[in-house]
């Protein structure tokens, strides 16, 4: 039985006050909070077996290596990757995307086409623009409608044998839209294109099976799903990763080094130059254990309840407009009230201890699409409550009264 009050006890930060008020944390799409279980694993590592992995002959190093590699297996099982070495541990989604973008700069030719969607985060736009600059490839954009749903007919029209790579986020960070990635992957494969799915916003809510999806690359960050910052995943199919040139040179990623020639290590180490974020990797595994302990279906169902509850209450506010009303969405609500600047609302809510995000959410093309400077974004997690939503609504009404 899901008991939110019991769950909240796992998160020490939820007990603190901000500006004299109990913290209400509704900025989960930016980063999630960390439960004691994950915090404990990090301090246990530094207190008991901190040492460099993969090369030490001594016991401590072996112990750390075992726990780190065990975490990689947890990640593998969670995402159902076929092989453990298909899971590359990175510093996060942005790093993962840049590994792919860098690798493909040697594999693309001028005139090749890359495709992204109209609702991407800057981190899934800029690396591809840079890749186009380096290679002469052309960037195409799958348009979306006003509800924040991708236009799949337009996607069909844009697809051709020239399309080499397609990049779409599983869930939009600004709108919460869950994109039809199964269909996108199937159609892209139909013309021989490879697909990278940015799962940063999906991973906290949806358990993804990379084999069932047949996705080529799937990337995410641990800090979105109760893990620490600075660690994330690049999943890639073995044969594709073998084919891809390494991103950074350094220790750990080599097999043999001489001044004449260096040969690279096998997967996953080829893409893991340097000492990794060891405690972070271990904590990433623990975070997945923690969330699986609650159950992703339970989490999704409860968060959906919060979404429905908050959406109904927000819509009852005069002049409030919600951006992103796709039928399939996660617990993210982007909104504005009349022509009040989102920054003003965010500032006043902050004084009341309520943390929301304001601005363009690193997705300026979406804001341009709606012709707005930004939105207020409230994003919920399974440790939030309906009472917190009630408090936010009251705070919002007060803010509107002050600002009008």
């Amino acid at each position: 039985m899901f008991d939110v009050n019991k769950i909240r006890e796992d998160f020490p930060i939820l007990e603190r006050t901000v500006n004299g008020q109990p913290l209400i944390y509704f900025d989960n799409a930016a980063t999630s909070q960390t439960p004691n279980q994950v915090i404990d694993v990090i301090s246990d590592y530094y207190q008991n077996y901190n040492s460099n992995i993969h090369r030490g002959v001594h016991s401590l190093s072996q112990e750390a290596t075992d726990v780190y590699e065990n975490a990689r297996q947890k990640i593998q099982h969670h995402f159902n990757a076929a092989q453990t070495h298909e899971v590359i541990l990175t510093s996060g989604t942005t790093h993962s995307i840049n590994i792919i973008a860098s690798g493909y700069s040697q594999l693309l030719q001028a005139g090749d086409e890359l495709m992204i969607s109209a609702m991407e985060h800057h981190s899934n736009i800029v690396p591809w623009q840079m890749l186009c600059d380096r290679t002469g490839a052309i960037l195409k954009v799958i348009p979306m409608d006003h509800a924040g749903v991708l236009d799949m007919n337009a996607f069909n029209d844009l697809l051709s044998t020239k399309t080499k790579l397609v990049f779409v986020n599983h869930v939009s960070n600004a709108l919460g839209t869950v994109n039809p990635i199964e269909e996108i992957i199937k159609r892209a494969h139909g013309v021989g294109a490879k697909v990278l799915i940015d799962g940063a916003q999906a991973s906290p809510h949806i358990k993804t099976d990379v084999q069932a999806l047949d996705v080529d690359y799937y990337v995410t960050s641990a800090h979105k799903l109760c893990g620490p910052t600075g660690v994330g995943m690049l999943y890639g199919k073995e044969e594709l990763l073998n084919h891809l040139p390494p991103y950074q040179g350094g220790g750990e990623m080599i097999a043999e080094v001489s001044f004449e020639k260096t040969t690279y290590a096998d997967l996953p180490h080829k893409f893991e130059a340097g000492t990794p974020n060891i405690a972070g990797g271990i904590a990433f595994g623990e975070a997945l254990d923690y969330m699986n302990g609650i159950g992703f279906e339970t989490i999704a169902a409860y968060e959906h309840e919060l979404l429905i509850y908050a959406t109904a209450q927000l819509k009852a506010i005069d002049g409030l407009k919600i951006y992103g009303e796709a039928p399939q969405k996660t617990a993210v609500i982007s909104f504005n009230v009349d022509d009040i600047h989102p920054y003003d609302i965010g500032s006043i809510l902050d004084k009341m201890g309520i943390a929301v995000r304001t601005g363009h959410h690193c997705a300026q093309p979406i804001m341009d699409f709606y012709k707005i400077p930004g939105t207020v974004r409230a994003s919920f997690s399974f440790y939030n409550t309906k009472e917190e939503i009630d408090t936010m609504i009251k705070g919002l009404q007060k803010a509107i009264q002050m600002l009008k």
Partner: protein
Amino acid sequence: MNIQEIQQEIIDEFAMFQDWMQRYEHMIDLGKSLPLIAEEFKTEDNIIKGCQSKVWVHAELKNDQLEFTADSDAIITKGIIAILIRVFSNQHPKDILDAETDFIDQIGLKEHLSPTRANGLVSMIKQIKMYAIAFQTQLN
């Protein structure tokens, strides 16, 4: 009034308020009463970078004194800039350059002073001082 006297006046004004809500309401009122900047000065060049909201500041030299006009698309930001304009407008560039800005601290708006704060109060002050340097050079 000189800069210091105006700052004291603002400090006294804010001292009357009991809590943050009253301070913010006052700031919002100040923002609403800020005289509008001429549309022709709301250019890309006049936008202060580093703010989540847009802020335009324009300066003109009149009788050896700098006159500032400004605008913002966010009302709290506009309130902050209104306070700055009250302090620095119609003052000699050299006095602007010499002025301290710790009065911000004393009116309970310290939280806006952090350089990483998205409202860019620090950037606004920097921009005002930059104008003062530019016009001071012109006067010399």
